[in-house]
């Protein structure tokens, strides 16, 4: 199958997808309610969409095409409120977070849909271990070449996104010592990681053709890269975020991405090179493991700094763009949390230290998602 042409989208338009957890209100373990939630949500007129995910305790919501992070927040809040209402009716709870802290992967059931069944056949137990919850942010690009240039520029900020959204410190009832353990599950997939270094759509199409000829991939959907072009939408899609615990933080992260993209497209601040990827995996690991306290190695200069400082410096750099895009409030929220060394992973750990019961942490997470 040939690569489809890169579609049209307004530059810097935004689309956000959030994968969410469905838990019961008894022991707060994951509960297979996605069908019931979809049936109830179908009756409510809402922006965006609500669709099933790989296992039946997950659900994915997405916004329509938005032009600002405040519009994203408005839509996500509207969908969130409807979700919470449906969940109340079913006696379950909905929440964010990159992992469910104590669910057992083998108890999960694959959602009954041809694509999920195919993936389950191919990936075996990995598909059930894929019961992890991420946020995807789409940014509109004016043309295919700009999309690829933006994609590779954005790669330098992958550690930022990981640390700011990290909310998966617990896996299978254990503290993993990672702020984002979720991405370790993604790494198990053979077509995960970074996109190939192609700065023009022709080069990228050639790569895609070679891959399809090998029979390993059939469409762009088969790539689980951290950032991938999404030709049918005319966007690039960033996929490293853990789902935050609140829709407010999810919208703020979208605003941060949009501000960075605006900086790249308008100011041409630097040219990405293949060598950027020499430190990519190291920086990514540092961010997953230590969150905001990670070491960040600048790909251009090789200089070591703390990720926290680098994020604050970037926020200052994109200030003008954030202001222009009406994303300042979200950036302010993120900046405050960086200055205080807070992210959702830290909140989850603090709750667990206090409560010493992961099920209670999940319950409080669900309340946080409701905005309580």
């Amino acid at each position, binding site marked *: 199958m040939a690569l489809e042409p890169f579609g049209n989208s307004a530059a810097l338009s935004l689309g956000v997808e959030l994968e969410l957890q469905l838990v019961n209100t008894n022991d707060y*373990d994951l509960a297979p309610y996605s069908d019931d939630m979809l049936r109830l949500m179908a009756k409510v007129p809402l922006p965006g969409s609500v669709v099933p995910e790989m296992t039946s305790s997950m659900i994915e919501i997405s916004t329509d095409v938005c032009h600002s992070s405040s519009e994203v927040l408005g839509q996500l809040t509207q969908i969130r409120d409807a979700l919470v209402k449906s969940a109340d009716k079913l006696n379950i709870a909905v929440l964010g977070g990159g992992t469910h802290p104590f669910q057992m992967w083998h108890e999960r059931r694959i959602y009954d849909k041809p694509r999920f069944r195919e993936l389950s056949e191919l990936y075996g137990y990995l598909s059930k271990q894929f019961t992890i919850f991420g946020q995807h942010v789409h940014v509109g690009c004016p043309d295919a070449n700009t999309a690829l240039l933006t994609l590779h520029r954005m790669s330098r900020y992958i550690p930022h996104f990981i640390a700011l959204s990290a909310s998966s410190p617990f896996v299978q009832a254990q503290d993993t010592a990672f702020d984002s353990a979720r991405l370790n599950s993604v790494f198990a997939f053979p077509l995960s990681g970074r996109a190939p270094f192609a700065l023009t759509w022709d080069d990228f199409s050639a790569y895609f053709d070679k891959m399809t000829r090998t029979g390993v991939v059939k469409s762009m959907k088969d790539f689980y890269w951290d950032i991938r072009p999404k030709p049918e939408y005319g966007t690039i899609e960033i996929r490293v975020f853990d789902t935050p615990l609140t829709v407010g933080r999810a919208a703020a992260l979208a605003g941060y991405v949009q501000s960075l993209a605006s900086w790249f497209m308008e100011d041409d601040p630097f040219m990405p090179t293949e060598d950027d990827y020499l430190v990519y995996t190291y920086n990514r690991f540092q961010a997953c493991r230590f969150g905001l306290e990670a070491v960040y190695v600048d790909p251009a200069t090789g200089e070591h700094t703390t990720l926290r400082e680098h994020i604050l410096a970037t926020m200052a750099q994109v200030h003008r763009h954030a202001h222009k895009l009406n994303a300042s409030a979200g950036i302010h929220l993120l900046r405050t949390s960086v200055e205080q060394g807070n992210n959702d992973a830290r909140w989850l750990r603090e709750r667990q230290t206090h409560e010493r019961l992961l099920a209670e942490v999940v319950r409080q997470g669900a309340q946080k998602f409701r905005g309580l």
Partner: protein
Amino acid sequence: MNEIMAVWAEWLKPSAGLPTVQWSILLAMAAIAGHLIQRYTGLPKVVGYSAVGAVAGLAGFSGAAWPLQGISLFLLELGVAVVLFEAGGRIPLRWFRHNPMVLVQSVLESLLTYFAVFWVLVWLEVPHVVAEALAIVAIVASPAVLSRVVLDTRASGPVTERAMVLATLGTLYALTWGSAKAGLMFRPSHPLTDTVYPVAVVLGLSFVVGAVLALALRSALRVMNPTSENTSMLLLALIAAGTALAAHFGGSAPLAALLGGMLLKQLNPRPWTVPRQLGTAASILTMLMFVLVSVVAARADWSAPVVTLVLALIGARALAKITGVALANPGSGASWRQALWLGCAMAPMSSVALLLVSQFVVSSPANGPMIARIALPAILLMEVLGAVITTLALYRAGESSKPWQSQVAPMPESRDSTGDRYGA
């Protein structure tokens, strides 16, 4: 069998008495049967427990007095109380505020069951008093059998959750109404208004005991971890004390435990994981409960007229439960298919029904035997058959997380081939 027991009693002088040895061996056999039934047929273990109890009962095993009294009554009440405490702790009252149709489903299926069974039995010329008592017993859908089936099939989802809640609420109505009714059965006839006072007394006293239980546990949970073994032991000890006290004060021990569980859920919103922590102790208690129920129920009279009445009762009950659930299904957030399986999942009758029948027999020597004559075979049949129907219903609703198959048979290719087919 009694001759063998007599010879054995002459020969053996065990320290804890012969009944202890007899019961221990019976429980050991039940454990083996439960395991083998599940291994070779995929059916829940409770079918094996009940089968062993039924065989023992039919063979004339005399280890349990009827009507229930003494230690066997206490153990049955304790077993039921533990199950109902946990079941009550799964009912968040706020759910009914957000989804009142679930409450309507519960009330409707209970009322329909009562009237359907009552009318069918009266039509078959059963005396009014007896039909009334049997109709109350028929409301009960056993949370004990349900929770065992759920555990064995590793089921979770809307049908499982609702079946547990509706079974618990049905038990609440039946225990309140039945306990009050049992107190009035010695009177030849009484108007409906006369039942209000005894209902209030049973409910009130059980509530007081349940509230003390809930408050004691809430205080304990402030300093103890709910996952700790000691918390489980404390819970078991407090339920045992509550069970002994509730009946003494004139309340109902299982009702007190159920109300205690519900109250604790409201007072302590933190997640509460009773079944995982009570572990083997509670499992032995519930196994004993199932064996005891079938030992006693197996002594029933299986003559043709009784069989007709039993089948009529079971048929009317099943139809009423499915209809009741379906009638209030619109607006409850469940699909029609789920409503059908939910109605089916509430088929089992077991320990609570037996306790009620025992109460009726004690309080009315005149009508009690006739009530037991029809109720006991119905209970035995629906303990075994009900467990099978519930298992089927949960599988058909797609709520079990393991495939239904004999674990020694060749493994068929499963659609979900991600390792589950090799699971336990």
